[in-house]
């Protein structure tokens, strides 16, 4: 019994160790992957780096962004409430989010830090 418990603790240690090891390796792989493919398309990101700033927030486009946010929230809540077991992938939401939220988050960031 004690032997078994010891064994199980060892398995836990070894298992979580390997899981973390593998996950960290994956991190590296993913970083390498994105880095490698970025190098190949160097010009585009470069251009993007020049203009990472969001468009200035005017009160006119704020409403539009707020509406987009509300839609995203509604979508997310709706998805949650029906508890899809095999849901449609969140891609649609993601794209909507990326379109509407990216600049928004950036400005939020400022506020949060204040």
């Amino acid at each position, binding site marked *: 019994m004690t032997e078994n418990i010891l064994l199980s603790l060892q398995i836990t240690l070894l298992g979580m160790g*390997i899981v973390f090891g593998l996950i960290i390796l994956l991190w590296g792989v993913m970083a390498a992957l994105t880095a490698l493919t970025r190098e190949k398309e160097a010009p585009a990101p470069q251009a993007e780096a020049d203009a990472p700033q969001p468009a200035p927030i005017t009160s006119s486009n704020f409403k539009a962004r707020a509406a987009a946010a509300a839609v995203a929230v509604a979508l997310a809540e709706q998805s949650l409430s029906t508890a899809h077991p095999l849901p449609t992938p969140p891609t649609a939401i993601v794209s909507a989010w990326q379109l509407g939220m990216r600049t928004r988050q950036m400005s939020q960031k400022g506020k949060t830090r204040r």
Partner: protein
Amino acid sequence: MDLGALLPELLKGLANFTPGNAVMIAAGLVLIFLAVRYEFEPVLLLPIGFGCLLANIPLAGMTAASEGMMGVLYNAGIKTELFPLLIFVGVGAMIDFRPLLAQPRMVLLGAAGQFGIFGTLVLAILLGFPLNEAASIGAIGAIDGPTSIFVATKLAPELLAPIAVAAYSYMSLVPIIQPPLMKLLTTKKERRIRMDYAPRPISQRTLVAFPIVITLVVGLLVPEATPLISMLMLGNLLKVSGVVDRLSKAAQNEIINIATLFLGLTIGATMQAEAFLRPQTLMILALGLLAFVLDTVAGLLFGKLMSVVSGGKINPLIGAAGISAFPMAGRLVAKMAQKEDYDNFILMHAMGANTAGQLGSVMAGGILLAVVSKILGIG
């Protein structure tokens, strides 16, 4: 030939009905009720519940061990592990790895959320389960049906029914089990932390390379995880490649639907009273719940650690999304954060952690299988 003498023969079914059958039929009805009334994983709980009813109709020949339809399907899809693997092809075709690829460090959260697997293994050993069974019970902690079924089929097929039922039931209880733990382990201030989202642009090339590289890396290092991870990645590759729409749609529709229906029915058909109604079963169900809690706690604590290390730039809630249970956990986390602060959107981060949890679960399942079968001298 006296036909009157046939009547008792004809009512043999009723005569063979045991209190155990009654209990299991009640259990089946509860599963169906949860599926229909509360929509808890209905595509699985409804077939499982219905299969449970069938398995407990005496002499009907509809148990997974019979030579009837359920036995045929069991041998074709569960014993061969075909059904869970085909489901994974479909799931893979539904996963979007861009949020994870855009923020690779999120992947760490997918490791922490697997602690429940091993923690539960220890507890199961403490309760006297032999190692193969304890490991299979621990696999409930993957919070991922196909992984649990895959591991249990290999190590302890006799426990498949309660393990599968626990795995799928608890997956569906995410919105009930996780929120109290989140509130308990995080402060209001932590939950209000907003997170940057300035993702690197993910090229089509990266998206296509990702599933291939993951299959090779994980496969070479943990061969036992290859079937699970490769089918998940195959499904993803079918989708992101963009050139095999037919196959991607087949994976997301006919293949996963048929496999899911048959898997549910046959898992349910293993829940025959004699085999299922044992003290073990209750212990397994309890341990499974614990596994879920341990996963969430470990995930949240690791989230807090990352939050501190990052200088408060990370909302620890996303740790709870690292448990797998894709995509419910990710959505729940985003919702919790918004509850505290209506303007706080961390859906993308949560989905990144959630897909990391899916990867982590599969890898942890494979590692568990590898280590335990090596110790037992099976592999």
